[in-house]
C-alpha cells in the first residue's frame, strides 16, 4: 500500500506531462526531453560507439517521440515506450550506415584474438570491449541493455518487441560467449 502511492503519483505526473506536450506546451516538451534524453543518448552511444551518430539518433528519436506521442497508450511505462522508439532509430541508423557490419563479426565463425599477455588489467578491458562489440547483434543489444545499462528483462522485452524469455536466453548466450572469448585470461571468474 505504501509503495502504490508514489507509483500512482508518478503515473499521474506522466499522464499530465504527456497531456501538456500534446497540448503544445513547449516547456512540457523540454521537460519530457530532459527527463529521458540521458537514457536515450547513453543507449545510443553504447550501441553505436560513435558520439555523433549517438547524437543524431537521439535527435531523431525525440522527433519521432514528439510526432507519435498521441499514440502512446500508457500500456508500458513512458520510458520504455521512448526506449522502443529510440532502439528502432538506432537499429536503422546502424544498418543504414553499415556500421553494423563493420563493428560486428559473426561470433560463430571468427575467433576473438586474445592478447599475448593475458593477465594485465588493461588487456582484459580491451579484450572485453572487443568481445562485447563482436557479439551477434541480438546478444549484444540485450547484454548492453541488461548488464551494462541496467534495464530489466521486462523493459528489454517491451522495448525490443521480444518475449522476456528470449531476452533472458540471449543474455545467457551472450555471457557464455564472453566467458569463452575471455577464457585465456582464466582468472577466478570463469565458472562453467
Amino acid at each position, binding site marked *: 500500500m505504501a509503495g502504490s502511492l508514489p507509483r500512482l503519483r508518478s503515473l499521474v505526473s506522466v499522464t499530465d506531462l504527456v497531456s501538456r506536450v500534446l497540448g503544445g506546451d513547449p516547456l512540457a516538451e523540454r521537460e519530457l526531453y530532459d527527463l529521458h534524453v540521458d537514457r536515450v543518448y547513453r543507449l545510443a552511444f553504447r550501441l553505436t*560507439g560513435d558520439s555523433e551518430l549517438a*547524437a543524431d539518433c537521439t535527435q531523431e528519436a525525440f522527433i519521432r517521440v514528439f510526432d507519435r506521442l498521441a499514440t502512446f497508450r500508457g500500456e508500458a511505462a513512458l520510458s520504455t515506450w521512448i526506449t522502443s522508439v529510440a532502439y528502432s532509430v538506432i537499429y536503422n541508423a546502424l544498418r543504414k550506415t553499415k556500421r553494423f557490419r563493420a563493428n560486428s563479426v559473426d561470433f560463430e565463425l571468427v575467433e576473438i584474438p586474445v592478447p599475448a599477455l593475458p593477465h594485465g588489467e588493461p588487456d582484459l*578491458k580491451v579484450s572485453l*570491449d572487443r568481445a562485447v562489440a563482436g557479439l551477434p547483434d541480438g546478444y549484444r543489444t540485450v547484454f548492453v541493455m541488461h*548488464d551494462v545499462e541496467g534495464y530489466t528483462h521486462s523493459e528489454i522485452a517491451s522495448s525490443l518487441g521480444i518475449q522476456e524469455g528470449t531476452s*533472458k536466453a540471449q543474455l545467457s548466450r551472450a555471457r557464455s560467449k564472453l566467458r569463452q572469448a575471455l577464457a585465456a585470461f582464466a582468472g577466478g571468474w570463469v565458472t562453467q
Partner: protein
Amino acid sequence: MTDDRDELDPKLADLARGFREPPTTPREEIWTHIQAQRRAARAGGSVPVFDLEAARRRRIRWVGAVAALAAVLILGVGIGRWVSADLTRPITADQAAADLDRRGERVMHYAAVEHLGQIEALLTDLDSGNEREIALNARGLLTKTQLLLDSKRLTDPAIRALLTDLETLLVQVAQLDGNGSQIDRDLIDENLSNRAIRPRLRHAVPAGPGGLTL
C-alpha cells in the same frame, strides 16, 4: 535460465559496465537541432525518417537555399542595372560567376549582421528580463548562429570569430533555468567580459536603419 545462475564474475561484470562509457550528453546541441527540424517540418517540408547524411547536410542546404534565393533576386536587380547602364560592356562567364559569389557573400553578411543585432537585443534584456524567456530565445538564436557558421558564404573572419564566441555564450544563456543561479550568471558575465563581446557587437552592428545596404 535465471540471471543469478548465469551471472558474470563480479569483476568481469564491473568491467563490462564500462563498455563504451558514454560522454556527457550534449543536451543543448541535440535540443536545438530537434527544434530546428520540427520547425522545418511544420513549415511544410517533411523530415525524412532517418537519413544520416541528410541530417548532416540539412542545415547547410537550408542556408544555401535562402542564399540562392536572395542571390537570384539580387542578380535580377543587378542585371537590370547593368543593362541600363552599359549595354556594350563585354562580360565573361568567369566574371559573372565571381559576381554571383560576391553577391552571395554580401547576402550572407547582411543576414549575419541582422542576426548579431538580435543577439545584441537579447543581451540587453539579460539583466532585466525573464530568465526562462531569455533562455528560450537564446536557443533559437543558437540554432541560427550554428546555421550561419555552417555557411561557406559567410567569409568575414571578424564576424565568424564573433559568431563562434557567441555560440558558446548562447549555450550558457540557453541553460539558464529561471532560478537565478549566480554561478550561471557569473559564467556568462565572465564570457562577455573576457571576449569583449558587447564592444565587438556594437562594432559589427551598424547603428540605426540604413546603416547596411546590399
